[in-house]
């Protein structure tokens, strides 16, 4: 087994079969990362269409029906196709290296988890070209919009979600088995890098809630095709039931997206502060608390649906409680930087921006958690602004930081620091120009998901669209920088790429060998 991976020089067949049949965690991680970037560009182009249409009031470019499909597909593709697979890709690449394992625990299942995704998204995206068009009911696919009033293609969406969920469950079981079973001797749980910890907890969340999502779409399938009445009050069901089940999945889902991002930032900030992470064990416990609480706060997404007042109050207070462990994390990141010897390489810039903007998004979350106030904000652009601050400036910024941080370890070449910094500033400024005005729009009463708007919203919408194009351009620069690094980057040959980097992945040669550890490393 000492032979290296097939390269293009071995011929096309061998090269293609390397990727199709691979059981190597690094290959699979690479596949996940490229796939997620492709989906990121696809979902991003949907966003560009949305922002182009909203550049001015009135309908200019597309029809309202298509606009609805764009908002829906943008959300679905970004959440399930871009952000989640990106972090699974990072998990694949990094977890075995970080815990001193030879590979993932179940390597063949690992490959299966990945290869389901292209099929799932091919099915989902194909609906755009079918009769009736793609899903048009919003990424939360509330019944009865997604049942009684949905196009026939909703069935493709349902089965696409089913196999995508199967992929996620298998991927997470693999991560759990890897972390629990494959740690090198001496690598106790409380010595694991934060990224591994956050992923272990995320994987647990995924195994717990992806089946619930499968249940929700199965109920939809039955209601649509087999005459059941889960979500139809006429038969004794309740459309609100859909929202409860969806958000029981959906709220943990948003932590599934953000926890690995916390993990990435917890790796990067200590490196460029040249100090160990402040409050490691409190970070672990805070992550676990956030995960636990994610299961008991779901109905804060539904304050306006008509719940008993006691329910509203419970979900309000429980939601606010999450600010405590999240506050612990933000405090620890800042304290890690305090009196550190800081340098501002691209990954660090993205991480600092993450801390600032994520905290900002957290605060707007607190505003939304106040049940009485939420009646004003609900389904306005304020909500859109809020979750893009945590999804984009949170998850996507941290994913970008991770790629810059570990890219030299992966391919043995250094990216162009200047281009990285330029990309960061375009992304940072573009992002804020896009989403900051959306807070104002929302507070002024502009509803989300509408293809058109009143004239009083025109100015900030134009600003927001300009920002969005700027942010989109930054991603092209990102792609260019990564590809150029792989093809023309300056070689790095020392194991410890960054001066202050800690962890097993920085003890192996750069680029990391195809099989990292053939014998278990010793952990002190």
């Amino acid at each position: 087994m000492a032979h290296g991976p097939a390269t293009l020089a071995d011929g096309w067949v061998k090269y293609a079969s390397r990727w199709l049949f691979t059981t190597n965690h690094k290959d699979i991680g690479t596949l996940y990362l490229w796939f997620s970037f492709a989906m990121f560009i696809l979902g991003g182009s949907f966003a560009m269409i949305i922002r182009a249409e909203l550049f001015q009031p009135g309908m200019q470019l597309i029809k309202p029906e298509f606009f609805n499909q764009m908002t829906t597909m943008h959300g679905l593709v970004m959440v399930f196709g871009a952000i989640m697979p990106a972090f699974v890709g990072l998990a694949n690449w990094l977890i075995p290296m970080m815990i001193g394992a030879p590979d993932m625990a179940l390597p063949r299942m690992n490959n299966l988890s990945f290869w389901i995704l292209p099929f799932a998204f091919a099915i989902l995206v194909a609906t755009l070209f079918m009769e009736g068009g793609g899903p048009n009911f919003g990424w939360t696919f509330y019944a009865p919009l997604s049942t009684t009033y949905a196009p026939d293609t909703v069935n493709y969406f349902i089965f696409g979600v089913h196999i995508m969920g199967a992929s996620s469950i298998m991927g997470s079981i693999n991560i759990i088995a890897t972390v629990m079973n494959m740690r090198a001797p001496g690598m106790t749980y409380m010595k694991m890098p934060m990224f591994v910890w956050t992923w272990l907890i995320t994987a647990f969340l995924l195994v717990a809630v992806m089946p619930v999502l499968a249940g929700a779409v199965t109920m939809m399938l039955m209601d649509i095709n087999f005459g059941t009445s889960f979500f139809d009050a006429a038969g004794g069901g309740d459309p609100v039931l859909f929202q409860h089940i969806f958000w029981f999945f959906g709220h943990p889902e948003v932590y599934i997206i953000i926890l690995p991002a916390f993990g990435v930032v917890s790796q990067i900030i200590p490196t460029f502060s040249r100090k160990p992470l402040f409050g490691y064990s409190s970070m672990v416990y805070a992550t676990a608390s956030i995960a636990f609480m994610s299961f008991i706060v779901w109905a804060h997404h539904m304050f306006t649906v008509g719940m008993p007042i006691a329910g509203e109050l419970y979900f309000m207070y429980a939601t606010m409680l999450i600010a405590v462990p999240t506050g612990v994390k933000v405090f620890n990141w800042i304290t890690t930087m305090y009196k550190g010897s800081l340098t501002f390489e691209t990954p660090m810039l993205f991480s600092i921006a993450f801390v600032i903007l994520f905290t900002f998004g957290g605060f707007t979350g607190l505003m939304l958690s106040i049940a009485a106030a939420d009646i004003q904000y609900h389904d306005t652009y304020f909500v859109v602004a809020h979750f893009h601050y945590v999804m984009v400036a949170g998850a996507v910024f941290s994913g970008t930081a991770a790629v810059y941080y570990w890219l030299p370890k992966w391919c043995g070449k250094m990216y162009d620091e200047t281009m990285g910094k330029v990309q960061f500033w375009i992304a940072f400024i573009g992002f804020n120009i896009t989403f900051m005005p959306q807070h104002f729009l929302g507070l002024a009463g502009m509803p989300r998901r509408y293809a058109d708007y009143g004239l009083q919203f025109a100015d900030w919408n134009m600003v927001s669209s300009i920002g969005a194009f700027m942010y989109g351009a930054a991603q092209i620069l990102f792609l260019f920088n990564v590809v150029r690094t792989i093809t023309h980057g300056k070689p790095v040959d020392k194991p410890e790429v960054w001066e202050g980097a800690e962890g097993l992945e920085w003890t192996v040669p750069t680029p990391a060998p195809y099989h990292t550890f053939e014998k278990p490393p010793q952990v002190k």
Partner: protein
Amino acid sequence: MSTEGNYYVPEQSKLPIVTATGMGILAFGAASWVIEGGSPTIFLVGLLIMALVMYKWWSIVIDENMRGLANDQLKKSYVLGMLWFIFSEVMFFAAFFGALFYVRVFANSWLGGEAAVGIFDDTPTDAAAANNEILWPGYQAEWPVMVTPDQAANGDAAMFKGPEQNMNFPGWSNLLSWLPLWNTIVLMTSSVTVHIAHTALKNDNRKKFNTWLGITVALGIFFLFLQAEEYIHAYQHMGLTLETGIYGTTFFLLTGFHGAHVTLGTCMLLVQWIRGLKGHFSHEDQFGFEASSWYWHFVDVVWVGLFLFVYVLA
């Protein structure tokens, strides 16, 4: 597969990509089949690919294990994988039980214009009362829902009409003809017999193992037969179908998914039985059988929940 040092390093494999392809075809085919005028052809092609590749995949895993290629660490990974898979199945059923509880405790009361439960709202709110009076006049909350809100408000013009009979306890005099009770007895017994088989295998008593595992499989098949009888009876004589409102919906979906899992569990045990007859397993290495038996206990526990909340506690 080979082991180097202490670590197991996997070879490339064609199985995953074929499985993923089968799964993609299966999903696409299922969707195009349920849409009106659709045909099952693509779905069946996907199913065939899946069946073949799964047979192949497990054969390879069994073969690797028989040749002693799977080391202790890999075996532990399989144990963890199975346990967490069962946990994911628990959560799948949790969604359906959650739907049942929500409907029974909240939605049904509100549709009838009543308060739900004490700690949430003691007195019916104006909204709930108005909901009943304006949208579903005449609907009275009861469980099982025999007259749907639609039927109460719209009479014969209703789209959803309630069932004629339900599956509840029919009274002590009819106890012995109450199928769910027999189903419970059959499934509970099978949990005991599979345990006896397990103990026998651990004590290296192969004959006893084969016998009791065979009995377990037979009980599983008998359960499925009874369940099918119950469904036929419901459709033909009780007017209880998927279309009869929320009671039929929750009844068939919960028992139906349970039945699907019993079918899967029976298949798993059947395979282990055949393997047992072929002389696989030893008194210390028997994970294929153990995993199947865990799964079997899991479907058993789900049934207890079903028996309580779907049949008994009305």
